[in-house]
């Protein structure tokens, strides 16, 4: 147990900020990330499977994604985007980067929560975390071609889901 705690503390030091960033991007809510991060580490503390995980970060990363999408499915109130990222620069230099409005970002994340866990994870890693298919395949222990094909199907499914929402 004490070994697990140490492993978790080390994980917090090395990858805590990455996990925090992932949760922020999947929830678009700066005010709930702290609670979710705490919940994530409590779950890891209570997880025997974490002890056996060959790659503790990959395990925690997957758990963080599950947690964020679980939160997304359960919440009832509308989200507010992170203010820092949605504000526009006064010189308009990034105005176009801000074009995609909060509601549309919410829609795409909500649609992603309806994908299978594997497809959802691949989409998040490829498009939000901008990992290559090779990196994703390595992390998930699959073949890059499979990741590419899964991602392509997931995008088609997302499109269907978004059209239906409209």
């Amino acid at each position, binding site marked *: 147990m004490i070994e697990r705690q140490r492993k978790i503390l080390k994980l917090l030091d090395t990858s805590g900020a990455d996990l*925090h960033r992932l949760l922020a991007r999947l929830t678009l809510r*700066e005010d709930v990330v*702290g609670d979710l991060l705490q919940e994530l580490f409590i779950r890891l503390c209570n997880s025997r499977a974490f002890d056996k995980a060959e790659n503790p970060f990959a395990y925690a990363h997957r758990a963080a994604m599950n947690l964020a999408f679980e939160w997304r499915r359960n919440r009832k109130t509308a989200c507010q985007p992170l203010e820092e990222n949605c504000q526009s620069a006064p010189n*308009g230099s990034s105005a176009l980067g801000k*074009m995609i409005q909060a509601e549309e970002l919410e829609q795409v994340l909500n649609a992603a929560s309806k994908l299978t866990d594997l497809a959802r994870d691949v989409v998040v890693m490829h498009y939000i975390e*901008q990992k290559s298919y090779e990196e994703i395949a390595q992390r998930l222990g699959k073949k890059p071609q499979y990741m590419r094909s899964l991602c392509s199907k997931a*995008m*088609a499914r997302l499109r269907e889901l978004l*059209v239906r929402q409209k």
Partner: protein
Amino acid sequence: MSEVDEKDIKLRFEAISQFQSSPEVTARDLERVRKMLNEKTSGLRTGEQKIWRKIMNNPITKLAAAAVIIITILFGLKFTGGPDVANVAWADVVEQINNYTKYKCRQRLVREQGPQIPTMRVYHLNLSQRRQEVEDGSIHIIDMRGTDPITVELYPDQMKATVTKLIGFGPKKDPHIIEMVKRFEQESTERLGTKKKNGKILQGFRHKPNKYNDFTVWVDPKTKLPVEIELVHTQRGQTIFLDEFEFDFELDPSAFSTDIPEGYEVKTIIQDYRPVESKEISAQDIRSGLNHTSYTVEKLSWIEKLTIMQIGDPLMKKMGKVYVTGILSDDGNHIIIDQSNMHSDYKEAFMEWILKEQLVMEAPSGAKLYTHPRGSDYARFYLKGFAEANPEFFDIKNLSEERFTRMIVMSDGTILGLVANKKMSNEKLQELIESLVEIKAN
């Protein structure tokens, strides 16, 4: 074809991938979890410490434990190579940077194409205040602490000043490059080895947080502070170089004052970011609202309906006022021409479209039409904004996949946007551009 295509989904993911919590929030949340874990660990450690005490009280196990500790230290020294000035961990750099709140540096921006930005010396007093001394002799003071941030441009050789007031925009914090560098994680920061500069050995680190930004930081191993930073904006075709750093510089606080020195001729520009009431207005209202030349459309034979409105900028979460002229053509196309103080002049060159511009038409009057790299999105947001402000004029359900955007640069340098819901012939487009006339005072 549906409105939501794969490109659109990718754009949304791209926007999500840019989200970052503020460093303060991240640090606070991580500290909270660390505290929680430490409390848990200290509870568990009480039991472990008892076992350790037992080992150390026994003379045989005590010697064995000492041997293990010595071996571990020797092993560590062998494989870390012992003390080495050029072997700085990224975490040490971040820790060192965190000791400083203000810094100055030289900033150069090199673009692959488009107008070049002059080199400047930037003094960052804090996240809301900075002073830029530009090589052309001008001085920029930026103060974003208040509700109405102010930027001042001083031209001492001409005794002229331009004051821009951003009403309702602030207070804001500007996440400058050092602030971004502080966020790099040890795990995702790649070591680049060493290089020699001015007799000093520097240690390099590289961090590529996403496909848009590629950072290289060269650090002095003695001070553990950055000496050079290179940030490549891969998609924009530009690189920012920072060097000649000085942390905790000495400069009189008056150097950050936005008060204009006596004797200067002052031009004031107001950019209003307060909530905007959508309403129909007249051409004269556009003229009085813009701080540059304003244009209206002369009646053309194929224009069935023309409406002028003020709306919140659809590209800026409706912050800031935009003047839009909505046109309904005889073939059922909806066309919008937008003007605002954001398009004030060639400062617009900062925006990405002009870097990726493609000239598609030059009208006899000298007006030029350019494509927009994200024209479909630009058009969608403007058409949506107009539909919300005036649903009778345009119903968003009729948004077409043929929509497009053209940026108009008038012969005097004024920039306007043109959005159409459906295709337009070049003849009609040219006719429309030629019908743009300056709004003169009554």
